[in-house]
């Protein structure tokens, strides 16, 4: 079946360092979405990318969607302790109403 892999599984960074998580799908996606889940919380929608090669920014966060619409990345510049949490990508499955979630990257930021 369709799979969405996400790496790394876990990353520690010092506050102020950059962070990147990568998402790869086994099939072409209709769109890619990113979610953030704080410890003990629920996933919260961050952004959606639809077009091939699309890049979007939200303050210190930069999201990219690959040219083949099979991979994506989230880059955080100068991490802060408020960035702590698990980041999930979720790929839209072509022709369906379903999202396939990646396994998530858990980010820990040390002050």
């Amino acid at each position: 079946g369709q799979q969405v892999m996400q790496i790394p599984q876990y990353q520690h960074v010092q506050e102020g360092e950059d962070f990147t998580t990568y998402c790869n799908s086994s099939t072409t996606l209709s769109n890619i979405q990113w979610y953030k889940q704080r410890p003990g919380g629920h996933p919260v929608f961050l952004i959606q990318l639809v077009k091939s090669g699309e890049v979007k920014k939200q303050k210190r966060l930069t999201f990219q969607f690959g040219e083949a619409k099979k991979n994506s990345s989230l880059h955080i510049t100068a991490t802060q302790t408020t960035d702590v949490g698990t980041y999930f990508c979720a790929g839209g499955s072509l022709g369906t109403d379903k999202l396939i979630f990646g396994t998530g990257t858990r980010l820990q930021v040390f002050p």
Partner: protein
Amino acid sequence: DAGITQSPRHKVTETGTPVTLRCHQTENHRYMYWYRQDPGHGLRLIHYSYGVKDTDKGEVSDGYSVSRSKTEDFLLTLESATSSQTSVYFCAISDSRTGPSYEQYFGPGTRLTVT
């Protein structure tokens, strides 16, 4: 946050007992989803609904059933709970009127322990 509630928020039950989890929304969104979250697996879709009485299976539907008799309520039933169904269960909603986006809004989750 979107108007989504889940009940109960925590439940401990014994193996073999039936369990029903409830998701209630006040957003009048068409789509509703049930996921389970386990370490190392991310979020896995159990069942989803695209309208009243219209449901379909997700990737991990065995041992679960759902019902949606009203737009606002989506019930998840574990027919006979097993220890492998110990998990955190999230309900989510989305509205197709937003176009192809289908971004999902999640409820607070239900932590279920099967002993």
